């Protein structure tokens, strides 16, 4: 089966296209030969005895002798000799099936039809003289083999499906036959085959989806005058076949057959999934008003668990964003409000997450009375935002504006026992982090670093943000003379900090621990 030398040269000379430059072009030929040799040495691809001549038929329509052919055939060769399997079968828990009706007969394999009705390659195959030798039956006129095609049993059909070969499913017309086909495909664990059978089932069992198909085929299907949905038959059968059902759902999803999918989910009583599927459609609606109306219509759907509340929130949020956006766009255009001039809006607030919206409100509408839609407090109230969450967002927004008075006030107002101590629902370490990320000056940072209760952590932060006073005071409180002396080396020569350290070190009243 090695191509003759002449053939090979012919190929290389006649090819008017340059080879792909994977590597060195010069290497190509030798590499190809080498690979070919390797491929050929893998196994005796060409059986010596005449009995197995039929093996040389290329079902995929590639001329025998091509590398691609040989590799593929190696993988899916059709020899079914009676010999002991090399590896044992393990149970994969699938419905048990009736015994195979018949094994594959040699002749049945010849009644092959080229894959996918690819006539072009089919003719190519016929044109290949090497094939004529081995495939007498393929040379028969098309009309002759056509009516033989449907001779395959369900088992053989599924096997061919698995191997990616052309099949005709039309002969499986009774529901039983169809379901047998489906069960066999499921038992073979081949998703491709399962889906192939399902597509056929859908075409022949669902009325709406396949009107065109019915017209073409003119099958004897009784259409019930009472609006009976044929798909119910399919749905019912799928319900007891979970694997097939999952494949069907996935196929419909990928093929974007929303209607049928919804119908299926509802018929199965999976209303929560159906609700989510319907809700998901909002993504395809660009116009914000239409999207809001759509979300409103979703509120009546049967969501599972908390999902309903979230959809409600989603709707309320978008409704509010539309109001805020309209007002702010106007305000920005009129140029009346200073904050919009100083910090022009980067993007519209529409369709932003809730927290982004809250941040936006804290940024542009911080001091508005609680009654307005854009007031942060109102947003917080409506969406039941936790105190911590609200605090984090407001802090970041006010810090971004460098409004340190507001920042300061946030901590004070928390404490209603007389404003003596700063309190925060957030750890002060985190507060420092947020402030620092919004480039707060050392003066501001210092205040909050000092409030970190853990001494080690405080020193770490103070050193990181160069709050010398805090470092010095903490070492003093810890009575750690050595560390203080060490720190003296890090501060600037002749600075106030250095003097302070010197003062402390010479202070006789401190009882240093080291």
């Amino acid at each position, binding site marked *: 089966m090695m191509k003759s030398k002449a053939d090979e040269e012919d190929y290389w000379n006649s090819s008017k296209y340059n080879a792909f430059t994977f590597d060195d072009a010069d290497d190509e030929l030798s590499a190809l030969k080498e690979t070919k040799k390797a491929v050929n040495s893998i196994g005796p691809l060409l059986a010596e005895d005449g009995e197995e001549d039929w093996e040389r038929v290329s079902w995929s329509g590639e001329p025998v002798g091509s590398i691609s052919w040989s590799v593929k055939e190696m993988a899916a060769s059709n*020899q079914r000799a009676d010999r002991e399997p090399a590896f044992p079968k393990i149970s994969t828990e699938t419905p048990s099936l009736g015994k195979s009706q018949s094994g594959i007969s040699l002749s049945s394999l010849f009644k092959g039809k080229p894959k996918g009705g690819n006539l072009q390659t089919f003719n190519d195959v016929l044109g290949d003289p090497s094939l004529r030798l081995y495939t007498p039956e393929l040379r028969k006129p098309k009309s002759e083999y056509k009516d033989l095609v449907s001779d395959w049993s369900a088992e053989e059909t599924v096997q061919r499906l698995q191997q990616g070969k052309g099949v005709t499913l039309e002969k499986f017309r009774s529901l039983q036959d169809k379901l047998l086909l489906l069960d066999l495909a499921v038992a073979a664990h081949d998703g491709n085959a399962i889906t192939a059978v399902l597509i056929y089932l859908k075409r022949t069992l669902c009325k709406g989806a396949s009107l065109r198909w019915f017209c073409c085929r003119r099958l004897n299907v009784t259409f019930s005058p009472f609006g009976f949905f044929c798909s119910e038959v399919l749905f019912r059968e799928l319900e007891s076949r979970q694997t097939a059902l999952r494949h069907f759902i996935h196929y419909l999803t990928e093929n974007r057959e929303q209607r049928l999918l919804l119908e299926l989910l509802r018929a199965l009583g999976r209303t929560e999934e159906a609700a989510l599927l319907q809700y998901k459609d909002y993504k395809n609606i660009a116009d914000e008003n239409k999207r809001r109306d759509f979300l409103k219509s979703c509120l009546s759907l049967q969501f599972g668990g908390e999902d309903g509340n979230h959809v409600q929130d989603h709707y309320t949020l978008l409704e509010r964003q539309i109001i805020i956006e309209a007002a702010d766009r106007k305000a920005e255009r009129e140029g009346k409000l200073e904050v919009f001039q100083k910090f022009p809006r980067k993007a519209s607030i529409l369709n932003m997450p809730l927290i982004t919206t809250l941040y936006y409100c804290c940024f542009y509408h911080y001091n508005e009375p609680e009654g307005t839609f854009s007031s942060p407090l109102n947003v917080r109230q409506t969406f039941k935002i936790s105190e911590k969450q609200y605090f984090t967002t407001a802090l970041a927004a006010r810090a971004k504006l460098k409004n340190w008075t507001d920042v300061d006030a946030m901590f004070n107002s928390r404490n209603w026992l007389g404003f003596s101590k700063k309190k925060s629902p957030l750890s002060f370490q985190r507060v420092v982090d947020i402030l620092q990320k919004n480039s707060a000056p050392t003066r501001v940072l210092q205040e909050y670093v000092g409030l970190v209760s853990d001494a080690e952590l405080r020193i770490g932060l103070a050193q990181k943000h160069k709050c010398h006073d805090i470092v010095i005071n903490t070492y003093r409180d810890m009575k750690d003379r050595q560390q203080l002396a060490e720190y003296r080396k890090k501060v600037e020569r002749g600075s106030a900090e250095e003097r302070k350290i010197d003062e402390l070190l010479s202070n006789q009243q401190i009882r240093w621990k080291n």
Partner: protein
Amino acid sequence: MAHSARRDSPELPDLSLLKRLVRDQLIYLLEQQHEVDKLYKVEHKPIVSISDQICFLIRPRMQTVKWICDVVNADKAAGKFRRYKIIFTPQKFYACEAVLEEQGVFGDVTTDEWAFYLLPLDEDIISLELPEFFRDNFLAGDQRWVRTAGSALHLLHSLFGPFSKVYGIGRCSKMTYESWREQVEQGEQKARHAEIGNVFLIDRDVDFVTPLCSQVVYEGLVDDIFRIKCGCVEFGPEVTSSDKSIKVMLNSQDKVFNEIRNEHFSNVFGFLSQKARNLQTAYDKRRGMDIQQMKTFVSEELKGLKQEHRLLSLHISASESIMKKKTKQDFQELLKTEHCLLEGFEIRECISFIEEHINRQVSMIESLRLLCLLSVTENALCVIRSVSCAGFRQSYGADHLLTFSNLRQLGLLVEQQPGETLTVMESKVGKLVNDRTAVKLTDAFSSLAKKSHFRALSKKLNLVPKSDEEYDLRVPRDMAYIFSGAYIPLSCKIIEQVLERDGWTGLEEVTRLINGHEFAVTGKIPGKFLRIILVMFLGGCTFSEISALRFLGKERGYKFIVVTTAITNSSRLLEALLDNNV
């Protein structure tokens, strides 16, 4: 690695054979069969070409086929007549052909296949480059890739087999095994010298914990931060310190990379600076050379040294860039939280850390990763408050309702509704239902939330080393080094145990907790016990896991070849479950 490999570890087979095979196939297919001279990337837009024949080389995805149908129909409407060919790789699906038929272009478009299954990324890594395998198989429950995986295994079997033993765990593994076995039976047997002895098949859903952890070995970190694609990484301007990005192949050919890829990041700088010193010494040699010596030096050594120099500076800048990025995101604290979750310590603090993370709208994927890690490690024991999930949606957008539904379905994130706790009653009922029924139930409704038993598994398999002992990362004592000594990856530990015991005996409790589907079969053709083991991850594996297996191999004198449907990491895993792609 600080200590040397065992002497008796075998040589790996030459995987480059695979590459040559598929390349030649493609050249053959395109040139001879279809006379292709130009390739275009398929996008959803009209094709500007004067050619009257167009060939598409695509993955069998319905969406892509639909795009092509649009192109064909647009051409038809414009009165253009062309011939179209779709080459599906690695195989075509009937569903794709059905699309052609439905769109009325079947016949105008002909199809073919390019059986490209395996891409060797390195001398011990082969990828199927099928990232969609994970979502299709585990989320949608679509088994379309099972046969593909079986065929890939079959190809390896015919090139490097016959295999003598096959172990596996997971539903998909079992099906893949069956598909492979059938293909072997249908094919012919040939006696050849086996180069791969044992095969281990493992489903990704056996272990979700490992891919959810932050990676800290060099290769994994590079993947987490820069994203390695097909063994290639693009370093941006921040690494190259110029305005251009460069693409670099990362594999064992890169001598510098090869030495640091499996190292814990904390050792990498040490290695690199040692390397730099060596390089300096090598350069210094030329001092005091005479002309002749200099000539030899320039012709023989200089090129290699320069190459090494280039690679060295590249990896140093990459490491610097990694350091910068990680410091910015408080990596230390993040790791601490992860380790606490793995250990089951201070869960309350972990939850508040995660909540804060969410509140501040820091990276969405990171937040999701932490939430999932919390869920799969803690499961029912701890209250994953709906609050934090609600907070998540507030922070990152309402559409994550769908993401959460996906995560729930996969058992990655089980939300506990307010007020709901696991009552004594419930757990009693759980025990009453015997295991057999439980297994059947989970099979029937595998779309229902699965429970993870990480804590119990961790105890059983000693996945978390005792924290009171100092762990020297420079001299790793077990696979835990890949996670700073905090956790031995579950997937790799299972592989280690099964190989050690030569089967699943003694691991019954473990397999029960993982939800079974384990198997171990011996082939009829008795093979020598070969120390080359093929590990096939169905649904993806991480670089950290590969590093762990390399370590295990060195310890035990095995050589592992990893076959994976795709290289994954926490971001890829979670992004596959976001709901913006379908």
